[in-house]
């Protein structure tokens, strides 16, 4: 601790240089943590949302092709199936085109059994089952549009040639996607003229280990029909949405690491300059009796502190920006990107490593340099 004051004094030796170095590391780590948060958040959404006992069944050709609603009954007869619920994508917008968020129509009767993990109260589920225009809204969408329980809202149809007027009876949290809106499919069916087709059928089974068996039974049951099905676990289903972003995720991660590498080189150059200027002082300290290892530790501590200060600034800025971004852009599966604590920790470790590796070579060299030679440079 007695060397701490010495380290801090040296940190403020050139305030402008220290501030600029901290800021440059801060900016790069802001970019790094924001970019790395995207794929991590996506994976987090997947693991947070996906249940191990829910299966999604849709047309083998893709979600754009509906399947008959009548499939529900046949799926219900498959062993281990407990709940079956149909879903259709409405794709409406709130006020303007950019006010979009995922909105779907679902069968209300067994919604509470299908999604007990969505944090919806029993009373709200009861309301949802009773009121034909009822809807359940995710917390982020409620916040984004300043909605409240009991409010009536209208969604403008984009895929369907009509609008739906809905009453908010509940909001979900827990494992539910925070930006979704669910309303009753019977309302949509009636407005659409009862086409009898659905986009997806959710299936809840008794035990996770029966998932492969049930998937096989469902898909075999509809093989060679006019609408063959593809069933997949919820994780795989959500993951298939994420897949379209995979390349972007990899690019984001790669860019993050390139930015860190670049700033690492800049920081190394700055550290080298700073230490070079102090070679004489370092030699004086060694001649006084400071061991090389103590001097090396102090130089590295300075550099690590600079890195950490940049890391805290970058991380804090990324946290705030992502928070604002996620509230303002709740549309789509990637709408809710928050910085995970693990990313914050990882960013701070990277910050400390930038500090460490940028200074280790010049600091080691200065701490071990021949004292007489170094003193000669002062004179």
């Amino acid at each position, binding site marked *: 601790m*007695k060397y701490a004051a010495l380290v801090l*004094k040296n940190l403020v*030796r050139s305030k402008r240089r220290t501030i600029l170095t901290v800021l440059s590391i801060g900016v790069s780590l802001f970019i790094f943590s924001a970019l790395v948060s995207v794929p991590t958040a996506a994976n987090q959404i997947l693991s947070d949302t996906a249940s191990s006992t829910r299966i999604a069944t849709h047309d083998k050709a893709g979600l754009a092709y509906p399947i008959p609603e009548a499939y529900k009954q046949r799926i219900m007869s498959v062993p281990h199936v407990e709940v079956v619920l149909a879903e259709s994508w409405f794709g409406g917008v709130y006020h303007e085109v950019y006010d979009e968020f995922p909105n779907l129509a679902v069968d209300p009767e067994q919604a509470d059994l299908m999604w007990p993990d969505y944090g919806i109260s029993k009373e709200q589920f009861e309301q949802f089952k009773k009121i034909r225009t009822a809807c359940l809204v995710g917390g982020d969408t409620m916040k984004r549009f300043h909605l409240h329980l009991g409010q009536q809202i209208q969604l403008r149809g984009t895929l369907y040639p009509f609008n739906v007027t809905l009453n908010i009876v509940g909001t979900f949290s827990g494992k539910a996607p925070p930006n979704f809106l669910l309303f009753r499919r019977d309302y949509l069916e009636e407005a659409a003229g009862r086409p009898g087709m659905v986009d997806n059928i959710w299936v809840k089974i008794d035990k996770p280990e029966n998932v492969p068996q049930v998937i096989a039974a469902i898909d075999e049951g509809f093989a060679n029909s006019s609408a063959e099905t593809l069933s997949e676990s919820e994780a795989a289903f959500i993951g298939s949405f994420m897949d379209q972003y995979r390349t972007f995720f990899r690019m984001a991660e790669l860019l993050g690491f390139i930015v860190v590498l670049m700033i690492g080189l800049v920081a190394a150059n700055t550290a080298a300059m700073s230490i070079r200027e102090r070679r004489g*002082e370092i030699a004086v300290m060694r*001649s*006084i*009796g*400071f061991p090389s290892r103590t001097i090396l530790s102090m130089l590295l501590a300075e550099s690590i502190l600079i890195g950490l200060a940049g890391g805290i600034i970058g991380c804090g800025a990324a946290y705030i920006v992502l928070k604002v971004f996620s509230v303002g852009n709740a549309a789509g599966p990637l709408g809710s990107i928050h910085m995970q604590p693990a990313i914050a920790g990882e960013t701070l470790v990277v910050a400390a490593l930038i500090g460490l590796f940028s200074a280790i070579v010049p600091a080691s060299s200065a701490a071990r340099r021949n*004292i*007489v030679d170094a003193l000669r440079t002062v004179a």
Partner: protein
Amino acid sequence: MDQKHAIDFEHVTRIYKRDEFEVRALDDVTAQIATGRFVAIMGPSGSGKTTMLNLIAGIDHATSGRVAVGGEEITGMKERDLAGWRARHIGLVFQFYNLIPVLTAFENVELPLLLTHLTKAERRAHVETALKVVGLADRMDHYPRQLSGGQEQRVAIARAIVADPTIIVADEPTGDLDAKSAEEILSLLVDLNRQFQKTIVMVTHDPRAERYVDTVYRLDKGVLAGVEPGKRGAAPDAAAHA
């Protein structure tokens, strides 16, 4: 090695390699400096004065021969051990003061004490005493840039004495000072030698220094050319010529 000798050089040679050239900075020098003396090492540029001082201070290694300081042979010591040894036994004063610019006078003087087990309060007491000895008790919170050259050198001397070293080595301590400040610094070194019986070895070009020291060691081209009494009047130390 004789305990009454603060410094013992036995056939010490120091050769520097500069690219393909070899420079024989010290050539088979044998000399002793008695404990409690104030001595000057004098000679023209390139005569090996600073090399001899560096060897005494343990910041350079002899190519051959033996160097003992305070009865302890330092020739074969490893750098890690030498650092600890320097902290305990050597107080260094440089021509250009070499104070740390971001530290106050107090903090500069405190530096050697950071290597000890003294408490903060004990360190403060030692630093205050050292600064009082050099007459700068009222400049403790001043940064080097706020001090004159003579004052900076006094702070450097306070730093050299604060850990109560066995020997003070001073490399051209008056070389960057005006005549008045130089006289003051030399007087201060004499006081330290007299009051605290510190052995002081000083490299200097300054002919005035002869009036303050007990003994003058003259080097020429790396060879000990002579040992003379200083004009202060003390007898020369026993010295053997190569």
